[in-house]
């Protein structure tokens, strides 16, 4: 006998007066389980996101280190970013 069959059997054997309260309780349990599932999958996604962000950052830093660019000062990086922006914009909107 499956879980659902057993539950249906038990519910059918209840005195009719108790039925509404029991069904309310079953509904409550179902909703509670659903909420727990949702928050669990959100937590898993968040964890996956943090891991992938960290892994990407580490891979990027490793490459920059190999290319001798990891120790660049922020001003230097910013200057390169600004130049890239101007070059791309000039190319796209000339």
């Amino acid at each position: 006998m499956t879980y659902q069959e057993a539950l249906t059997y038990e519910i059918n054997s209840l005195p009719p007066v108790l039925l509404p309260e029991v069904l309310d309780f079953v509904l409550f349990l179902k909703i509670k389980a659903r909420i727990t599932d949702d928050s669990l999958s959100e937590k898993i996604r968040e964890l996956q996101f943090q891991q992938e962000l960290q892994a990407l950052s580490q891979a990027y830093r490793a490459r920059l280190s190999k290319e001798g660019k990891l120790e660049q000062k922020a001003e230097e990086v910013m200057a390169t970013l600004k130049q890239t922006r101007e070059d791309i914009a000039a190319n796209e909107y000339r």
Partner: protein
Amino acid sequence: MNIDNQWIVLDTNIWIFGLRNQPDHPACYQLLQCLNKLYVKTPYQVFLELPANLHPDEMKRFFRLLHLYPNRIELSWKKAELALIKKHRNLGCKLGDAVIASQLEMMNIKTLVSENRDFYEEIMGLPFRVLRAEEALREIDIAE
């Protein structure tokens, strides 16, 4: 106005300083760690600038990261309108910054997060406010 309940744009420098985990801009990495709490649009210009810094395999991983939150992180493929570029050039923006400003205006974005001083110190009259990563983090903290 708070950044936890509106679409914002992260400038290229936030993504790059964040991924570099730049020691003198720690707030950029911390902000990327909070992406699951934000609504972020990526304008076409930023999208073009990222591959100039990231290798193709790093871009793949970057997209995989963004796809974890498709409802919170969106890419825009629209080029800037020339009239808007002209308008922002007249405010004093360089061409590239004028393109970004125009794309923000087209997307009706009210907050740009950027470490670019040209934006947050020098240009007046922009139709959006400019926050540094640290200020953006403070707004997230306040909202929580």
